[in-house]
């Protein structure tokens, strides 16, 4: 009884999760430059992180 449903060519293929993630982001008109914030370099100019090895660093905003 599922014939014609799962094999419906209009249904998404096996890369469905990637397509869904892309769709979610584009629907909101968002264009992040990176897939995720995994950083393999020294972080520069961050006054928050310049505070060193403290567990939490916080600054007041104006």
């Amino acid at each position: 009884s599922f014939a014609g449903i799962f094999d419906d060519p209009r249904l998404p293929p096996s890369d469905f999760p990637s397509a869904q993630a892309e769709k979610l982001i584009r629907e909101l008109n968002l264009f992040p430059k990176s897939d995720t914030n995994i950083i393999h370099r020294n972080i520069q100019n961050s006054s928050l992180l310049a505070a060193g090895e403290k567990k939490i660093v916080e600054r007041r905003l104006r």
Partner: protein
Amino acid sequence: FPLFDDSGVSLEELGHHAGYYKIEHSHAARLFYFFFESRNRKSDPVVIWLTGGPGCSSELAMFYENGPFKITKNLSLVWNEYGWDKVSNLLYVDQPVGTGFSYSSDRQDIRHDENGVSNDLYDLLQTFFDEHPDLVENDFFITGESYAGHYIPALASRIHQGNKAKEGTHINLKGFAIGNGLTDPAIQYKTYPDYALDMGIITKSQHRRINLLVPPCELAIGACGTDGTLSCMTSYYVCNAIFTSIMLHAGDMNHYDIRKKCEGSLCYDFSNMEKFLNQQSVREALGVGDIEFVSCSPTVYKAMLVDWMRNSEVGIPALLEDGIKMLVYAGEYDLICNWLGNSRWVHAMQWSGKEEFVASPKVPFLVDGSEAGLLKRHGPLSFLKVHDAGHMVPMDQPKAALEMLKRWTRGTLYEKSSNPQILVADM
């Protein structure tokens, strides 16, 4: 922050903060957060907001739903008259790791389940309250929407467990609220065809046909349970065929708000958030340096797939039994996490007050004398169907959403009117 200020509030008086927390149980991860002290009283409750996706940054809600400011077309900020910081000390966290300004230098820090997510947030809260000891006695509430329907019960359980075990600092958890959330996929996925039929999105024959997908979906989700792995991935594919089938009939309908259409592939335009946060002056104000802003992360989204179909409702009854309040609210025009599916899992949940909750009447939720929603409550459990709203209730009904938060955190969401024959949810 380029704030256009016409409110008379002195900028010097504002307690607005941005911070990084170095996650204790990680290789090299830091969570970024915004913290806004209450615009009114320091003794207001502390409220954490969790944005869903999974993998979307907290700034999405901060700028477009319930934060202190909204972004204008010329990328300056204006006060949000209905920001939740009017009644609470408000905390937005970019999470899970990899989202927003939160980052790691080790890919192993990407989280795959609620255990990882809730432990990171618990550890952050512990350190946050060490940094803000003046807030530790305040009532604490967890809020959020969409995929946060998974995160929120997990974090509530983690905090409750930590409190009971006298682990670290006691967090004064009083309740948690889930807005248009995904919490119990077994019930919510099989409700899609019924909601779509009720709202005229599909016909009866289409409903009958799509319903053929429900038994295999139920079977797959049953195998997934609360901690399955491969079975959960399988059920993601099987069950999403239900939603996709409905959308094939819905055309360009906006699945976050069925009253609207998506123009091309565009359902909402949140692009100003990215433009704003990528400005040099703003980045300097935040202190984030050259860390990129990842508005929504596809990698984080995919990493959480194994978690998607797991039942996050299972820990809730224990919280209710211990008097922790839960509010489930849902905008009535959202399809993707629709009110009917949410109502059904809340009604089906096994706890000591189940029968009384099911039997309790629906009463109007009044804001300024107008019905803003329909409310049911028994004991610590409340369910609110919000009128004229889609997936993002604080964006669509900001005044009602602020009232909801205010009354719920103060225990006045549901009060008897002076006329004993009429129960109304009003001040």
